[in-house]
């Protein structure tokens, strides 16, 4: 029997990591395969839509708050038209001289009629249904309680029929509702991330179970947990990238479709709910985060399972 052709001692260890296609072929069933990329695609699409909704609502609230922050409406509620007009002029003069006020605009009667037309109908005579006069104020700062109180004091002397309200106060309940929706969107994004991680966890455990005999052999040949985990991470990364790309496309298509629908709603408030370029970048990052979560989940799952082997 001739001698076994054993390699030199130094030739049986190296510093090249056991990875890549050579490592991947060891556990061909490590690919999550089957429906998994599609599950990830659906999760990513839903996450993109929820995130886009949240970002749009956030923009809407920010824009509306900025618009209304210094907005104040003065109503002169006086049945007598001549007296009402006189109070409007006096009130406007006093307000224009106040240092806190940036702009004063007396809302024209025609504009008022147009505002009330949906409720009162066209051609309603002011004498038949007396309407309050409106003055639209823009303050230099925000309409805080102290400023409003001071302005009310000034108006009381020249226009006793004047009522002064911050515009932001009227929309307070709306902002509150939108903020709740914002939190809902954030919660949905978190839930979807957790669900995706759970799906990857299940799939990784299943893939590990299916390849257990091979993994035991690699262990006994001196393979480390990290080497084995990397094989699964690689497969999961491929599946998650595929699912993420498809999910992003589906999500963006849904957002564009919804955007077109909302663009047809001729409302100033809805128009403020668009997405800025930074928002699009954030949405593009969703699948990357998805891949990161999937790979990390796969790694932690595999390492935890391997730790139960010796």
């Amino acid at each position, binding site marked *: 029997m001739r001698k076994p*052709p054993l390699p030199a001692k130094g030739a049986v260890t190296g510093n090249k990591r056991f990875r890549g296609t050579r490592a991947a072929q060891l556990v061909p069933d490590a690919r999550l395969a089957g429906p998994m990329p599609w599950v990830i695609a659906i999760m990513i699409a839903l996450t993109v839509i929820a995130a886009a909704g949240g970002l749009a609502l956030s923009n809407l609230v920010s824009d509306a708050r900025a618009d209304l922050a210094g907005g104040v409406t003065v109503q002169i509620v006086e049945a007598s038209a001549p007296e009402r007009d006189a109070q409007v002029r006096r009130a406007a003069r006093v307000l224009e001289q106040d240092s806190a006020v940036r702009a004063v605009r007396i809302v024209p009667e025609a504009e008022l009629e147009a505002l009330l037309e949906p409720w009162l109908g066209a051609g309603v005579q002011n004498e038949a249904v007396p309407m309050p006069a409106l003055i639209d104020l823009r303050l230099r700062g925000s309409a805080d309680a102290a400023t409003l109180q001071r302005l009310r004091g000034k108006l009381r002397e020249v226009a006793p029929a004047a009522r002064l309200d911050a515009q932001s106060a009227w929309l307070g309940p709306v902002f509150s509702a939108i903020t709740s929706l914002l939190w809902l969107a954030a919660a949905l994004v978190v839930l979807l991330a957790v669900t995706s991680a759970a799906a990857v966890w299940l799939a990784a455990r299943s893939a590990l179970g299916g390849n257990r005999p091979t993994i035991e052999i690699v262990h006994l*040949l001196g393979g480390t947990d990290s080497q084995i985990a990397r094989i699964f991470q690689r497969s999961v990364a491929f599946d998650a990238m595929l699912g993420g790309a498809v999910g992003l496309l589906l999500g963006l298509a849904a957002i564009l479709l919804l955007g077109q629908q909302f663009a047809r709603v001729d409302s100033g408030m809805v128009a403020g709910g668009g997405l800025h370029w930074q928002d699009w970048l954030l949405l593009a990052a969703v699948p990357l985060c998805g891949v990161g979560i999937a790979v990390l989940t796969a790694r932690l799952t595999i390492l935890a399972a391997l730790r139960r082997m010796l």
Partner: protein
Amino acid sequence: MSSAPGDIVRFDNVGLRYGTDREVLSDVSFTLYPGSFYFLTGASGAGKTSLLKLLYLAQRPSRGVVSMFGTDTVTLPRSRLPGFRRRIGVVFQDFRLVPHLSAYDNVALPLRVSGVREDDLHMPVSDMLDWVGLSERAQARPASLSGGEQQRVAIARAVIGRPELLVADEPTGNVDPEMALKLLRLFDSLNRLGTTVVVATHDVHLLRKVPESLIMRLDKGRLSDPTGALRYPPRREPVPGSQAVP
């Protein structure tokens, strides 16, 4: 406790039980020396496979001390086990080849796991396949190989990493007598290069084929070592009546 200088494996009062069952190994104590050839015998269920599992670090003992290559492996952190496993070659009774890899890739696996570059492993793997007489079947999958061929691939995989200790569990159990003899020649030639070899077998005819081999006999989980030769071997004792492998 660590191995004494010169020994490769030391078991001291080792016991092993699975779960809450009775011990499958009890008070096992012995020492393996570099370059020695050991046969592990015993009836089915005597604990041979359990003892081998302890030797190739697939199992930790329930009690006692197992030290290998001078280190107590019972308390060794799990993260350091791969380094020790790379110093041990294992031939399983059921071969345990990776079914979707070719014979070549199965033999190359230990080197790849150890981080050897692809360019550097082609020659040793080819040479090893040639040594076990399977050059022509390098690309064959295990399913298309005979039992003897699979066993030879398993042996090539076990020895290509130049193990200091080779453990074989019933390596001749699934092959005909002629192939069994060939496999034993492989082990013997490896042993002559300095590798400590432990072969578990119940084939008493094999014991006579390797001169200077020592016999470890397990009986109901206990190692019989009436002369203390296994625990304190004064020198290598040839198996009585043994004859060299032809």
